[in-house]
């Protein structure tokens, strides 16, 4: 008698299995729970992984914090896949930029609108868990993150006093006004995301693919995101491009470069 063998797990299989484990922990331990769906490639992968974890469905609401300044293609994508993926979509508004800390540099100030919009959604729905698609390889500050990252009252991130996290055990402290950011993609790299999109055939906004020698590598608001020079117009070409690149993914995000500490200040105050 010959028995079938388990499939050999490659790097994407391992990342996928770990992310599913994290999403199931969050769903079990943190209610009410919601997933931040920015409409970008990483958060689409996250929705996909949630469907893997929960047999084809997303059993909690997804949130889109709408700055009102996204690309039109992104709004169309949101309409289409909210229906196709049967998502329970919650929309959050952002305050006008005039209400944001004027000491921040202009692009960071604009990005901070999103933080304020997110904070009001969290308060309105009394969320205990917020699933977000950040990755360690994106930015030095994010490299210090935990998979379960407690946010104190006022949603502040205390980078110097984070809980220990090991052996797949995640701390879930709770006090009034606290919530936990859950980061199922923390160990993924940019190229893993693209390879997984290719393997699973996950739909994307086509702004990621080159037209007239330009494409977006990372998508934020229209006014603070710039495209990069590229001729990569297919998934395979994007992957090939990344394999030969040594520049940072967020190079096109203005607020990362305005001043040395702007991004850390944003994150401490609750930015992703």
């Amino acid at each position, binding site marked *: 008698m010959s028995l079938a063998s388990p499939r050999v797990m490659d790097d994407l299989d391992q990342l996928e299995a770990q992310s599913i484990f994290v999403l199931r922990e969050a769903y079990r331990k943190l209610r009410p729970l919601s997933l931040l769906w920015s409409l970008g490639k990483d958060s689409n992968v996250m929705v996909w992984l949630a469907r893997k974890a929960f047999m084809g469905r997303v059993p909690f609401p997804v949130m889109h914090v709408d700055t009102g300044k996204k690309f039109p293609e992104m709004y169309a994508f949101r309409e289409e896949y909210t229906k196709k993926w049967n998502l329970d979509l919650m929309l959050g508004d952002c305050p006008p930029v005039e209400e944001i800390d004027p000491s921040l540099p202009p692009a960071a100030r604009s990005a901070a609108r999103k933080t304020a919009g997110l904070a009001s959604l969290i308060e309105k729905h009394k969320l205990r868990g917020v699933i977000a698609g950040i990755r360690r390889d994106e930015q030095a500050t994010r490299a210090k993150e935990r998979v379960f990252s407690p946010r104190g009252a006022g949603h502040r991130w205390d980078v110097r006093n984070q809980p220990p996290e090991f052996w797949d055990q995640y701390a879930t402290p709770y006090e009034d006004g606290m919530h936990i950011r859950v980061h199922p993609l923390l160990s993924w790299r940019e190229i893993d995301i693209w390879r997984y999109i290719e*393997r699973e055939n996950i739909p994307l906004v086509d702004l990621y693919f080159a037209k007239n020698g330009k494409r977006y590598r990372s998508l934020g608001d229209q006014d603070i995101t710039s495209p990069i020079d590229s001729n990569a117009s297919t998934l395979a070409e994007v992957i090939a491009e990344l394999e030969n690149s040594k520049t940072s993914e967020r190079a096109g995000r203005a607020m990362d470069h305005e001043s040395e500490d702007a991004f850390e200040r944003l994150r401490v105050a609750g930015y992703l």
Partner: protein
Amino acid sequence: MTTNDLPASLRAAATPIVIVGHVDHGKSTLIGRLLYDTDSLQDGKLAQIVESSRKRGLAVEWSFLLDSLQIERDQGVTVDSTRIPFHLGGREFVIVDAPGHRQFLRNMITGAADAEAAVLVVDALEGAQEQTRRHAMLLRLIGIRHVIVLLNKSDLLDFDQAKIAQAEIDVRDLLGRLEITVEAFVPASARDGDNIASRSERAPWYTGPTLVEALAAVPAPASRLALDFRMPVQDVYRFDDVRYVAGRIERGVIRAGDRIMIGSQGQQATVAEICRWHAPANPVAGAGESIALRLEPDLVPDRGDLLFPAHETGNALIRAARIRTRLFWLRGEPLRVGESFTLRLATAEHDVTVASIDAVVNLDDLTLSAADEVPPDGFAEITLATSHAILFDPFSPGYSDGRGVLVDRFQRIVGGAPLLGAAELPDGTHAIHPTASKVSAGERRALHGHEGAVFWLTGLPGSGKSTIARAAEAELVAQGLRTTVLDGDTLRAGLCSDLGFSPEDRRENIRRAAHVARILAESGQVVIVALVSPLAEDRAQAAQIIGQGFHEVHVDAALELCEQRDPKGLYAAARAGKIPEFTGVSAPYEAPDAPALRLATEDELNGTVLVFRNFVQGVVTR
């Protein structure tokens, strides 16, 4: 070259390696050097390092590279672990950078626990230091299987074979005592690049591997497929009238049709289907996969139930209610016998109490000795008692078996507990298995609207402790705070009526009061203890028993004033020799050095009560 050349389906996951060692032994320099030698730097980084080194009049200073990768310039130390990818041959690695400062132990564990291999950096001239021993101990407790020792700064010994051999013997002896097998000892200079990626010309006698060769030789993680099946249930879902038992397979293989046992209840079921979404159908799943099972009959396991084969072939699971475990302790306050925690073991949660502290590791010489407590960042062997027998596989480096974690009632992770096995009971002892509450401190706080805490009023007889306590009690209750007073005389009328006033009996009186206060505080009450409690040592014991909810309050009135007040006529009686061992007269009173609050009772009573009441409210409703 990257791993492109391999078929996509066989691309291996990156191998995490952790770099540890004493501060200033050269970890950051090593990482910078490795990234440069393996061509893993981002564009422009090398030019930056060369430029900032030149500005400071230094040769190329490789540790600046980490400065530019991490925001840590403000402190000058690595504040948290971070991960840096690099390529070596056809293989990808991730360097986990862990800090050398001892207060950052929990960050180091966070980074190091997943590592497949460790590089222990030891200054060849200085030899093993305190953090070298601490980190080595931790490598053993978290179960890192492959350890490479880099004898850094070997140029300071002129790469002299005899001197390096001596340095190696010292480190080998240290690691031998920890039962750590070393894969390679590499005499090296990270700054100059000797024996990092290229062979040193200054040590022609050395025939062992360079660091890069030693890393390349680290084997892939051991396969867990051949072991008996284990799946801790993570959750049970019911979607569209189908019940799914979800979890990750920790070891072994499961096939549709297999008979399995569920948890400790001993119920059996057959695997009807292995369910995945948007994945190739396969009636088999192996270790590492996150899957869902349909069972026949359609039983409903609990989260934490361990699924294992109905007929085991390998080492059977251990079933025990008293468990020997190693411990690395991460809480800021020491651990003491009698404390209760939740033991998390994979997805299971068990109530446990520390039954004994069997030995504590002395980090100066790595010997074990008896002790009453485990200090912060300490290592120990302890015995845990559970209220019912639990099932587990003993800890084994490189596997997820027996990886216990202790969680306090605030859901904070306070220690790692690699479970060793069942504990033997000493002859003639009666095993107790205390149970812990299922109600968390947060839930109690939500119920009461405030936290529980103990305010321990100490002071001379007649200083006004009971008066202040009773007045504050009335006012706090009027404000909706659940408050109880444990008053010395009241306790002695009942619970402690068998006790006199000898130092031993006073100590016992305080011990009992402290335990009662702790129980009340854990139930969410505000507890005001009014006890002379004259000796600092006895109050320290009370503080130990009560833990972090203890607040010492000194009711500070001069002896002359107390004696003048003498509300119960006790001073007069003591002076007349009618009361022996009376505090202030014929027994000592040791005032607290640093009470949380000092109440001067020369002031008018209402004012004193107000100060105390405000302090209490501030603490419990912060």
